[in-house]
């Protein structure tokens, strides 16, 4: 306490953003505990020089801090020792100290000539400013349920796809990937699926406008909006939640150049799953199939032939900086991830330039540009399928080491006579895309209280796909080579024009926002295919004939939105927000093309009340309420119209025709989601932050592509089909177990429990899509399986058995066991299993430890109570149905029936199959719960003194491992399946799974 009087701390209560210490050396005054940092002093000079030092809280000098006199272009930066010197002409000027990673501070200088400034690193948490909808607000004062994930938390896992990075990081944000293929993105479902046939994917809002492109490396922060008070402004498209993506903007100050490199390798994680080798398969088949023992002379491990150790590279260079007038952030990124399946990889090039300039004192312009070029090489020639089913008896290579061609190898025993290794020498399938996004945003301060803004975006994208099957391969052999070309062209124009009025009246403050937004998008898609290509030549001009007729279509969609929002607060204690949205979309029928949505939210910050103020235990407490209506517009264009197809599929013998295509429903209307949320945010001792939310979401007039009985002449009709409810609880707990000293430890646990129930179906129907594995039935979870119930193996004869429900003359239903599959594949005998494809709860658990320069973190994600239909067992666990496919090694606890009296899990194997035992039933339904060590990372920040010697300002290295361990009962390679009803991968289904990969990575990052 030697410098008791020379070091005075001022806690700035109003903003709470930073802690600053300053030394007015000319004054030995008592600390001013007021709400202002204004320091009064006699004015004794017209122009004077202020000198000082800027340091961090750890007392390290901060070089490159930007210091600007507010409202002028006058300024400087601190030198290598953190010293600065600045001439000030006007006493009472305000100095702005800003530096990346530190809280910006404004200091009014009334005459002090020496200022020692301590900048504290950006305190996130409750004081983080988050962008919600059309405005930015401190998390502390929000009335809605949001989750934010900053860049650092986001990018522990290595991937080029945002959903993969979000998995397990925010409660209620359920990420699932149907595939470990790097060219396939995972899907996201927020707070349960509230729709049947419309989309379940959340809406992405990038840099303030709907949709747009971004690369995860450029992301500053992600905000997930979950309840209607926040999502509602996105009206018809907000039903599935909104993910706000903000890319990095430069900060005034010294130019920073950062270089980040990650290198590593990946392996397929195949869990407990094992395929048989030759001896195992021979022994198994010998009981039912006369296999020649000569087959044993070959033992090919097709799995190993199809999978490899894959390499992952990620290189990024960025520069940012600027003056107080103009700031910029530019970056370039190269990403390459090989798939663990051979010939499969993803390469991405990404460029971004974000610039912001104060053109005049009132007008600010931002120009954002992003260009992405992606090249995907898809796994092809049935590589993955063959890896599972090819027989180990068949050779991969001949005596000379060349891949065997199964078609011409007389002794080939596998069904498909296919060696993908032979095909992959010549075949390929790839997709290339170039996507650009250009934003021009203007903000104009019309008056002190009114801001006019215009946010405008143009997206252009082009994509092409090529699939080439060489004539020398099985895939291209029949037609003398096949070539498929696809081209897409899409563009989208959006303008969002906003007026914001904001004024404080004493303790009252009011913000009113008006937005008019219009969007139009255009899509074009064309394909052409040819056959008869010379070997090794892969362009359409060398094709001698068309394979199928060329196709193309173009489509346009328009949206228009008006919204108004009023936001009122009193004394930072009471907050109210209300909004109204009117939206038009050409997706809907002419009678129902526009719809209205409203939202209300309120919150009360208890900790700002007198009775809790300065409470040492409960340092923050807030209660939130919200209610409102949003819509879902993710349906195909023209869904309400009765249509005839005039495409070539309606032509006959070369003449154009028109055939009935879609049954019309002129009454089709918007799906509306009514949602309520109650939440609380609490901080204890400033160390533990807890957010809890309880929500109830009811979707009415569900859009449903209802299958029709064939006699209607149509396959389906779009209807509004009833209502479904999702309700749940979610929480997020962050504790800073150790802080302050050299050792810190932070823990995060988030969990979400969601329950889904179909409340009613239209016209009082009990079930839609009966006979489906996942039908829709009133009173049931949308993901609940309905199947013939497997009743095990008859110990007497090894037959498969199912439960058959029989109604006797008195109407009493009894269960019988039967071995006749058709008798249980009936409406009566199919039963609800009580098992759902959607999880009972999901979550994530992470711990971060740091000691001096070292950081160690471990992050688990977990899924509980979901059931997976392991469809692949149809192919390789089918009791002898295919002697020409490989079989899986029985999982622990499974057994095969061999002789009368055996109590077994698997029926007697019979070639050709044992009484349809592999047909759809609860037999292949497995517990899909899992816990996964998603990421472990050890990082080391090289001490500043050491790196400065070699010219860097910061440097760190890390070792990271993704998906190191998975705990599950699932018998397949990977229990993770899609939890979304839509998309490429079906809900709850595991079929010829491309397993997720285990990655090991080394990262080197430095800043110049």
């Amino acid at each position, binding site marked *: 306490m030697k410098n008791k009087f020379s070091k005075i701390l001022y806690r700035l209560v109003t903003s709470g953003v930073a802690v600053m210490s300053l030394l007015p050396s000319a004054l030995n005054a008592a600390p001013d505990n007021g709400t202002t940092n204004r320091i009064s002093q006699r004015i004794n000079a017209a122009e004077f020089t202020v000198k000082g030092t800027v340091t961090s809280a750890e007392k390290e000098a901060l070089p490159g801090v930007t210091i600007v006199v507010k409202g002028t272009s006058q300024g400087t930066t601190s030198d290598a020792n953190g010293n600065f010197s600045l001439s000030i002409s006007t006493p009472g000027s305000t100095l702005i100290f800003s530096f990346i990673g530190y809280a910006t501070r404004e200091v009014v200088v009334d005459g002090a000539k020496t200022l020692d400034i301590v900048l504290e690193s950006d305190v996130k948490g409750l004081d983080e400013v988050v962008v919600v909808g059309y405005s930015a607000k401190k998390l502390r004062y929000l009335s809605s349920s949001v989750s934010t994930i900053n860049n650092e938390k986001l990018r522990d896992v290595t991937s080029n796809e945002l959903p993969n990075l979000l998995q397990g990081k925010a409660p209620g944000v359920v990420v699932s990937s149907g595939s470990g293929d790097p060219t396939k993105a995972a899907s996201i479902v927020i707070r349960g699926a509230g729709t049947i046939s419309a989309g379940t994917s959340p809406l992405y809002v990038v840099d303030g406008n709907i949709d747009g492109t971004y690369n995860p490396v450029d992301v500053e922060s992600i905000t997930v909006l979950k309840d209607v008070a926040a999502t509602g402004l996105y009206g018809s498209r907000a039903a599935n939640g909104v993910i706000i993506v903000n890319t990095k903007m430069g900060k005034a100050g010294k130019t920073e150049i950062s270089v980040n490199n990650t290198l590593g390798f990946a392996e397929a994680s195949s869990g407990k799953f094992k395929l048989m080798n030759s001896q195992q398969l021979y022994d198994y088949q010998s009981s039912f199939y006369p296999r020649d023992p000569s087959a044993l002379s070959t033992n090919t491990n097709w799995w190993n032939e199809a999978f490899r150790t894959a390499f992952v590279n990620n290189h990024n260079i960025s520069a940012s900086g600027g003056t107080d007038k103009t700031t910029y952030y530019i970056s370039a990124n190269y990403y390459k991830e090989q798939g663990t399946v051979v010939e499969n990889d993803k390469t991405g090039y990404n460029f971004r330039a974000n610039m912001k300039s104060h053109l005049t004192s009132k007008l600010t312009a931002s120009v954002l540009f992003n260009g992405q070029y992606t090249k995907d090489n898809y796994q092809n020639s049935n590589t993955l399928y063959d890896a599972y089913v090819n027989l180990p008896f068949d050779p991969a290579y001949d005596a000379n080491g060349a891949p065997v061609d*199964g078609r011409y190898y007389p002794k080939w025993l596998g*069904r*498909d*006579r296919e060696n993908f290794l032979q095909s992959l020498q010549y075949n390929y399938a790839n997709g290339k895309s170039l996507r650009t996004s250009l934003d021009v945003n203007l903000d104009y301060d*019309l*008056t002190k209280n*009114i801001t*006019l803004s215009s946010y405008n975006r143009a997206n252009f994208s082009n994509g092409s796909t090529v699939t080439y099957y060489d004539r020398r391969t099985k895939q291209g*052999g*029949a*037609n*003398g080579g096949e070539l498929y070309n696809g081209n897409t062209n899409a563009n989208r124009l959006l*303008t969002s024009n906003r007026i914001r009025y904001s004024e404080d009246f004493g303790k009252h403050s009011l913000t009113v926002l008006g937005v*008019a*937004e*219009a*969007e*139009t998008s255009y899509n074009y898609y064309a394909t052409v295919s040819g056959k008869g290509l010379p070997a090794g030549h892969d362009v359409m001009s060398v094709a001698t004939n068309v394979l199928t007729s060329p196709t193309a279509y173009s*489509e346009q969609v*328009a949206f*228009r*939105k008006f919204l108004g929002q009023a936001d009122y607060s009193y004394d930072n204690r009471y907050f109210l927000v209300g909004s109204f949205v009117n939206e*038009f979309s*050409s997706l809907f029928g002419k009678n129902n*093309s526009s719809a209205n949505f409203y939202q209300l939210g309120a919150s009360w910050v208890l900790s700002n009340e007198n009775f809790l103020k300065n409470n040492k235990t409960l340092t923050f407490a807030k209660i939130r309420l919200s209610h409102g209506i949003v819509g879902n517009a993710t349906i195909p264009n*023209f869904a309400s*119209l009765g*249509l*005839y*197809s*005039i495409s070539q*599929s*309606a032509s*006959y*013998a070369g003449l*154009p025709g*028109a*055939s*009935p295509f879609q049954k019309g429903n002129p009454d089709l209307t918007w799906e509306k989601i009514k949602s309520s949320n109650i939440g609380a945010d609490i901080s204890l001792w400033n160390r533990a932050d807890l957010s809890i939310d309880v929500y109830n979401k009811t979707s009415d007039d569900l859009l449903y592509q209802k*299958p*029709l009985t*064939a*006699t*209607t*002449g*149509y*396959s389906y009709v779009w209807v509004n089909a009833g209502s479904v409810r999702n309700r749940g609880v979610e929480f997020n707990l962050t504790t800073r177990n150790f802080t302050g000293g050299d050792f810190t430890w932070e823990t995060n646990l988030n969990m979400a429990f969601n329950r889904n129930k179909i409340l009613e179906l239209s016209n009082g129907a009990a079930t839609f899509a009966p*006979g489906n594995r996942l039908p829709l039935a009133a009173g049931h979870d949308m993901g609940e399986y309905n199947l013939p119930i497997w009743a095990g193996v008859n110990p007497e004869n090894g037959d498969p058995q199912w439960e058959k429900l029989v109604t006797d003359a008195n109407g009493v239903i009894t269960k019988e066991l039967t071995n006749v*599959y*058709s008798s249980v*594949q009936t*409406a009566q005998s199919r039963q609800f299993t009580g098992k759902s494809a959607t999880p009972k709860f999901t979550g994530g658990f992470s711990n971060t430890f740091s000691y001096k320069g070292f950081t160690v973190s471990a992050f688990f994600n977990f899924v509980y109570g979901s059931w997976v239909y392991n469809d692949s067992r*149809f*192919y390789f666990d089918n009791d002898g*149905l*295919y002697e*020409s496919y490989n079989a899986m090694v029985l999982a622990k606890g499974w057994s095969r029936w061999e002789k009368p009296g055996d109590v077994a899990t698997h029926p007697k194997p*019979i070639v*050709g199959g044992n009484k*349809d035992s592999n047909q759809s039933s609860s037999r292949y339904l497995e517990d899909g719960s899992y816990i996964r060590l998603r990421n472990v990372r050890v990082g080391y920040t090289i001490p500043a003194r050491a790196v400065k010697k070699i010219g860097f300002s910061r440097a760190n290295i890390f070792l990271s491992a993704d998906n190191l361990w998975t705990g599950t009962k699932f018998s397949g390679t990977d229990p993770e399946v899609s939890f979304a009803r839509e998309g490429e991968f079906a809900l709850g289904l595991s079929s010829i799974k491309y397993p997720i990969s285990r990655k090991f990575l080394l990262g080197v990052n430095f800043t110049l």
Partner: protein
Amino acid sequence: MIKFNSIKLFLTLGLITMFSASCEQYFEPTTTIDETTALANESDVQTVTIGTYSMLLHANYTTSGHYMMEYPSDEIAQGQISSNDLTRLYRYTHINTSTHATNFWSQAYKVIAAANKVIAFVPDNASAELKQLKGENLFLRAMVHFNLVRMFGRPYPQNSGANPGVPILKEGMSDADVLTLSRSSVKEVYDFVISDLLSAAALMGSTKTNIYASKEVAYALLSKIYLFKEDNENALKYANLVIDSKRYSLLSSSDYPSYFKMATESNKETIFAVRHTNVQIAGIGTMYISSDQAGNPLGQGVSGWAELYASKKYIDFIAKYPEDLRKSFVTPYNISGVLQFNQKLTPATPMYYINKFTLQENVINASSPVYLRLADIYLIRAEANAKLGKQEAAITDVNLIRARAGLSGTALHTAASITAQGKTLLETVLDERYVELAFEGHRIYDLFRNNMPMVRNYPGTHAQNNTPTTDIRQTVLPTDPRVVYYIPQAEINQNSKLTQNP
């Protein structure tokens, strides 16, 4: 300043609102048209009728339908178990969720519903051109109902058509009615089909090419349907109307081996075929053959799966007359003159590739499946005559077909030779149908409607689970429940009025 700002503000707001509102546009689809404009004028009838034909091209109709009609026969041998539901069709191990039965049923009713739109639109007093088109739609509706009723309803002679058939889908039914249709009896469906065909024949005046319906096409189908319902007089009558029209002629012996390679429209023998262009590959051939473009056989998996072959029974039967041209529709898979066997079974299955469904206009796997041809009509007439006791007439027609196939002298039948072989006249006609119309989807109906069993005694997966496996017999009685398919469970689930077959 404030005032100036207000003006700017209101001007801006006004412009933005107007601009945004101007974005309220609707767009038209590019590959579809609104149903209200699709069939609004007389000029649309032609286009929409083409659309009805186009629906027959769907694999659910063509491919699944072929599998269902042909695979249960004794002309075919499956050499190995397939993951495809077609294995069950072949082995008579049907299930009520059969992929192919579900496919066929759903596409069949879509064709009927499409035809109904035109049938309802065109009045009976319309122009000759429109009446022709209405007649074509009536023909298509009748044909599809007939195909449905013989797949899902028991053979007509059993219980005189009183067994459950399939739902009859007429034009102009309400939405509520079509959702709750029940199965009409087999007889009711036959009567409905006959009535449609008679109307169709009366309406159609043009002689279009053989890829469209016309008066004689309707007559040809009528003769077949009457034969199926044992009305031999009418079968004879309509067969005569077709033959005597002189619109069709048997291909010459020299052209005959390339019957399925020539362009459909130039084939004088074909009465009706569903025309597939050479980029509309139906995929029937891929199960039967793997070959190069010259038709030389190749191993499995080159141009096709080649898992189903001509049965040993068929090969042995046809081998009695080495000069029989119909052998040319089977391509034995020989390597250096040695016949290859599919080794997946014991005993192994000889690989006799069937080439009736490939190389249309020299395109691999291209084929326009023939639905009605003149040889079939001659043999229908022969069968009707045989049943009516007109022995000479029956033998004449059979010999006409045999002579065209290159047979002569003692290879042709006489009443005496038939007796000497211990055969009845009906058996002789059916034998001729077996040889002549093989793989074209006739065999199972020819046997079961005549109350005869289907006997397989050759290597194939049908004997897979016999003990011992060297016993390769399978006999299916015409009364076997699995002579017909299960009604697709998916349909029963949505329409409780549909009853299941036992």
